[in-house]
């Protein structure tokens, strides 16, 4: 009983960021994977570096604009170069950039390490839906925009998007994965290039026909995470969301079992 309450609570909490701050959101939300947190930290770091440099540079600009006005009787000085200053403002940025590159490279190395995964899912992009295949588990299905959203998104549908739950971010059948497990995603496409993206996982990668790309994530909170196709893929590019349902291991196993049974009955019936 306690466990169920905990799970439900976690699910509610996980969906909060999407619902609560959504409207006037200013910044990148923190995700639910190690990679997304590292990426978020890098984002905040470089943002602060930029803000500090901006304060210094814009400060001098504004000071000059206020202080050296001709209308206030300012008389122009005659200097037109200073080797020392120029060396300083060439070298300092180089140092800052190298300092930035180090943590970025470390994170990149971690991102590229797809070894030792617990589960591999092959994701294929089509115009305009996703196909998910659990390798060696004998489960595969398509995932398309949910009916409610699809009805509301028609030109002049007369349906208020506000009245549709998770408008454009809901599918008929989400990808289901276990919490706390390293999931490797193999990406490819059947027609044109698409890109698979779940912001809460921090990762986005192109799905390219004829190629197989890889990414990995390990979600450490149960919940439903939503994203969208992120590479222009034609008419309905805006209408092929990515939804991932992260469940406890037990829930995932029983879900997988049901799916496998369904697959078996389906093939037996044929």
């Amino acid at each position, binding site marked *: 009983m306690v466990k169920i309450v905990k799970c439900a609570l976690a699910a509610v909490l996980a969906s909060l960021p*999407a619902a609560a701050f959504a*409207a006037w*959101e200013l910044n*990148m*939300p923190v995700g639910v994977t190690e990679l997304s947190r590292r*990426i978020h930290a*890098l*984002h905040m770091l*470089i*943002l602060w570096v*930029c803000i500090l440099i901006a304060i210094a*540079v814009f400060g*001098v*600009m504004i000071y*000059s604009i206020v202080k*050296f*006005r*001709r*209308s206030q009787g*300012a*008389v*122009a000085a005659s*200097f*037109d*170069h200073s080797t020392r*200053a*120029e060396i300083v403002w*060439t070298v300092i*940025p180089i140092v800052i950039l190298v300092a*930035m*590159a180090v943590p*970025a490279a470390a994170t*990149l190395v971690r*991102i*590229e390490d797809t070894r030792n995964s617990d589960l591999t899912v092959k994701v294929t992009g089509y115009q305009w839906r996703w196909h998910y295949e659990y390798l060696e588990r004998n489960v595969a299905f398509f995932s398309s925009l949910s009916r409610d959203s699809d009805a509301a*998104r*028609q030109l002049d*549908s007369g349906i208020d*998007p*506000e009245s549709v739950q998770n408008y*454009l971010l809901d599918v008929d059948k989400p990808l289901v994965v276990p919490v706390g497990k390293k999931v490797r995603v193999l990406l490819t496409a059947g027609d044109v*290039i698409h*890109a698979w*993206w779940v*912001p809460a996982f921090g*990762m*986005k990668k*192109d799905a*390219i*026909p*004829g*190629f197989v790309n890889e990414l990995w994530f390990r979600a450490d909170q149960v919940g439903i995470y939503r994203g*969208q196709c*992120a590479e*222009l893929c*034609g*008419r*309905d*590019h*805006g209408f092929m969301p990515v939804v991932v349902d992260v469940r406890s291991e037990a829930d995932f196993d029983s879900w997988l079992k049901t799916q496998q049974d369904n697959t078996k009955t389906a093939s037996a019936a044929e």
Partner: protein
Amino acid sequence: MSTTSSIAHHHPAEPVRDHHEDVHHEDHGPEKGWRRWVFATNHKDIGTMYLLFSLLMFFVGGTMAMVIRAELFQPGLQLVDPMFFNSMTSMHALIMIFGAVMPAFVGLANWMIPLQVGAPDMALPRMNNFSFWILPFAFSLLLGTLLVPGGAPAGGWTMYPPLVLQTGNAFPMLIFAVHLMGASSIMGAINVIVTIMNMRAPGMSLLKMPMFVWSWLITAYLLIAVMPVLAGAVTMLLTDHYFGTTFFEAAGGGDPVMFQHIFWFFGHPEVYIMILPAFGIVSEIIPTFSRKKLFGYDSMVYAIASIAFLSFIVWAHHMFTVGMPLAGQLFFMLATMLIAVPTGVKVFNWTATMFKGSLSFEPPMLFALSFLFLFTIGGFSGLMLAIVPADFQYHDTYFVVAHFHYVLVPGAVFGIMAAVYYWLPKWTGHMYNMKLAKAHFWLSTIFVNVLFFPQHFLGLAGMPRRIPDYNTQFADWNMISSIGAFGFGLSQLLFAYLIFRSMRAGAPATDKVWDDAKPHGLEWTLSSPAPYHSFETAPEVK
């Protein structure tokens, strides 16, 4: 308004150049009627045509942007089909890049390079005519795609295969239009290089050239280097579509990612083609209205040259998500970050030029200052995008849209507007209405931020680019952005009005136009309006 009053005092247009009896130069004025324009070989006439063409395209592309922002005003599809929406984003970009920004810079080059280097005209006047007159055909073809079965190109300005191969009858028209634009740009670039290399006034060594001339010299080399690459890429698309080749088709042994490499090998230098001349313009205007010499002239030249060089080795920063080896990602991250160094040098030098100057705020200076602040913001977001892991989040979201619009609108476009406000009296011989021009400045600067700043937030919150409809969580900032867009669009009518008005009326401009600021440069030694043949006798530069 000290400037206006001091300028109202008018010199009779006295040519500064000497009229030697023994100069056997055909000193005729312009031809009459349509022949003057169709057979134009005069750099000013051609420059004027380029600039007016660019203004027209600015409004055509702007109208498309208004359609985009109207559809995005609120969630749900209210106005257009998603396919037409995609056509609008693709055509808007193609028209603004190739029809508005690039021709505006070529127009400015045509008008100003001969005036600034002390030459009578551009070196290759007939090619000049040809390179302009290709453009109306190129853009008729491109705009004509709106009428053909299958609709206008909708695969993005980046034309990635396989998607772009799904274009209908518009496909060959798109490719041919791109070829024409490329040919026009290459000819324009050759003309700029030949003029600068051969027709400088005696005494004007390379390191004495005005910064605008320098920036264009380097831009012209970039154009010659990369436009043929684009032509090659689109020709391969054409043969893939019609002649059975499989350059970009994996099933036939080709590679769709290869197109992206080739495209961005053109594309990244291309974005610098659109900003370097603006750097040059700002480097002319800030010293004038600071009444102080440009700080660090030499390092400004080297900065442009290093930006140009680096722009050839950063292209894959547009493709971090296609899947590259780790070493490749690290290399392109470092190279991209390096570009921020010479870019920073330029910003610091402009700031140092103003420091301890004596500043006044005429419209060209206002636009240059807006450029300085807002372009820098675009530079910061560029730096953020260079961090590969972070780019995995930013890529293909509105954050990128915000980045490139900051560098292109208050960057490139404000640079062009600053140039127009700076040199317009020299072209027309009339001052324009300073009050209205300042109003245009304030409206543009405020609305451009209302329009593009919230797009950073949208991108960070997770809104992908190039979508016609969105989840309700993105509704608020989209509405603000659209309001900014309508305000910005309407404000530009003032710009057009001021330009056309100053062609016919306005207080006569003096030779120096900005007497109060005592601008440097050969263009200010000529009368206003500048004589039909600029310098028939080369001036001496000390």
